């Protein structure tokens, strides 16, 4: 994530900065803890006098950051997966949300899975906010597409032991095993599913693939596992701006930008665009400017801010793990199966999110 923002900083300063002023991005580690995130944000604003905050990975940490930025009247672009950040009562006119959210990803992967992999599902999900949200949206999407839910199992986040869940799922014989297993759980889950031979009995899908875990787990583990991604570096083959973005990253870091690197890059670039448009660093002025000309295109095609909730709408891609022998280099681990174009229908409506 830090690398993405550094690329944006280099690019902006390479062009002479914003309004003649140099851009400086300061980095702080929130340690995935809400209290730490809030404290670092406070320090950045009060001691370092930062004017904009971009970032956040864990949903609950990002909410804590948002509380601080709202209080200090600093514009915040969140790069964390969350439904609440762009909905009332948590959001604000100066809170923007660059990343995807559970509603969008699960509606997209849910519909695509119904259409392409099968309509008899079992869902297993981590028993906390993000997991529960995905589970709910997935179930609704399955129902709306005429599918059958054979079962839905919660498991404690971070447990890494799934074996006790698996025999029951195996006996139910679903077409698709949909898993909402973030972080290290994802690797443990896939390992155990494969060790019980279930990968040969059912299709595997999850709302998101995470590049870092894909790389650590390896092609054998992720072979034919389906999931959505906001960004994948091989898009450079079809999108010129993506090619530029990947080349800059290869040059500076010798690796392509990842999913969260893409969010933070885009977030910093949007801050810059907003300041240029507003000719000001005032939070409200920049926010108004972004809402007034909401469309942007930094690295993967057209995106836009929805006026009511400052939510970014963007294309996403359905991916599938490539499997051993087919991986291209260190990072070429997945095939792009389908592109899903940005559409506001995938998120909840403005009214549903509490915006009048």
């Amino acid at each position, binding site marked *: 994530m830090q690398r993405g923002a550094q690329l944006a900083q280099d690019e902006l300063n390479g062009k002479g900065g914003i309004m003649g002023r140099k851009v400086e991005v300061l980095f702080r580690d929130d340690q995935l803890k809400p209290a730490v995130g809030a404290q670092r944000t406070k320090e950045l604003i009060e001691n370092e006098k930062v004017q904009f905050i971009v970032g956040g990975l864990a949903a609950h940490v990002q909410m804590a950051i948002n509380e601080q930025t709202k209080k200090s009247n600093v514009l915040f672009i969140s790069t964390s997966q969350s439904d609440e950040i762009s909905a009332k009562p948590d959001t604000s006119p100066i809170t923007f949300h660059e990343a995807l959210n559970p509603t969008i990803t699960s509606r997209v992967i849910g519909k695509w899975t119904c259409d392409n992999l099968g309509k008899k599902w079992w869902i297993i999900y981590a028993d906390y906010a993000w997991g529960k949200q995905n589970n709910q949206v997935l179930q609704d999407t399955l129902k709306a597409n005429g599918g059958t839910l054979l079962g839905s199992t*919660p498991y404690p986040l*971070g447990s890494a032991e799934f074996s006790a869940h698996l*025999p029951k799922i*195996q006996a139910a014989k679903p077409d698709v095993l949909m898993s909402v297993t973030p972080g*290290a759980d994802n*690797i*443990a889950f896939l*390992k155990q599913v494969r060790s019980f031979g279930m990968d040969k009995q059912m299709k595997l899908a999850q709302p998101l693939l995470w590049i870092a875990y894909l790389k*650590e787990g390896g092609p054998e583990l992720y072979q034919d596992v389906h999931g959505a991604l906001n960004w994948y570096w091989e898009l450079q083959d079809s999108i010129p701006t993506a090619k530029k973005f990947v080349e800059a990253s290869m040059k500076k870091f010798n690796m392509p930008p990842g999913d969260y690197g893409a969010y933070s890059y885009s977030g910093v670039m949007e801050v810059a665009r907003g300041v240029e448009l507003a000719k000001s660093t005032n939070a409200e002025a920049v926010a108004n400017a972004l809402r007034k000309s909401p469309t942007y295109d930094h690295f993967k095609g057209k995106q836009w801010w929805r006026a009511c909730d400052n939510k970014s709408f963007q294309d996403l891609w359905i991916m599938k793990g490539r499997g051993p022998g087919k991986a291209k280099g260190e990072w070429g681990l997945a095939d792009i199966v389908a592109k899903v174009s940005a559409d506001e229908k995938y998120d909840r409506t403005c009214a549903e999110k509490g915006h009048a």
Partner: protein
Amino acid sequence: MGDLSLAAVLPQIFTGLVLGMIFVLLAIGLSLIFGLMTVVNFSHGALYMLGAYFTVFVLTYTRSFWLALVVAPIIVGTLGLLVERFLIRRLYGRSPDDPLLLTFGLSLVLIETAKLIWGKVGLTLDPPRELAGAVNLGFMAFPAYRLFVIGVTVAVLIGLWAFVTRTNVGLIIRAGSRDPLMVRALGINLNRIWLLVFGIGCGLAGLAGALAGPMRGAYAEMGVTMVIESFVVVVVGGMGSLLGAVVAGIMIGQVVGITTFFAPKLAEIMVFVVMAVVLLIRPSGIFGEAGLAE
């Protein structure tokens, strides 16, 4: 909620058995250390985590899982020796809270160090090729590696039992946990025995991690919940009782397995419910001797 046929429950019993084996290995080390030294070793979960990481480490350099399975627990055990010799030994004779706080702090240090060295994403390791497939047990295809985990644990338990009951050192360990003062009066240097026991206990945690690695992967926080559940096993079995650790470990594994089948949301809670019930009936645990934990 699923039917109650044998074909449905048997797989749960088997998966629960493997969970139980990991608990047994962790709990028996904790119990051994507590029984002899009345030290509550809170760093046990972190040592379990290091066991998994060292397995990956040795595997990377030697390409032999079997070697890694032997070497990783030895490294963790050696680390245990150093911890006892240079840290815990200074706290003997002080309140039992002191070693608890020390080992708790140590576990935080180890977890953060693991993140610094190996990254936050964690590492994956695969079971050896010989154990990669599944074995048909008649009622289900069960991963060969998980059967192997049961086998190794049973073998280690038999070895440990023979060590404690059939050797002179074992005799001293048992005597030392009953009455350390008397053993000293007989001219036996208990310091060395404590060092050895702490090392063995930590080595067993390392072994548990090494065995769990190919099933769960290695990541910095993997021991955080395991250490708490292992303490539950120790308390249920009776603080200091090795037989208790074995019986309670298997029991807790089954509780998790069966509860997951009927009500997955309750699986975590049930572990503590069982502990509460056991303690209400037998305040010192199933095989515990009254007074030891005070």
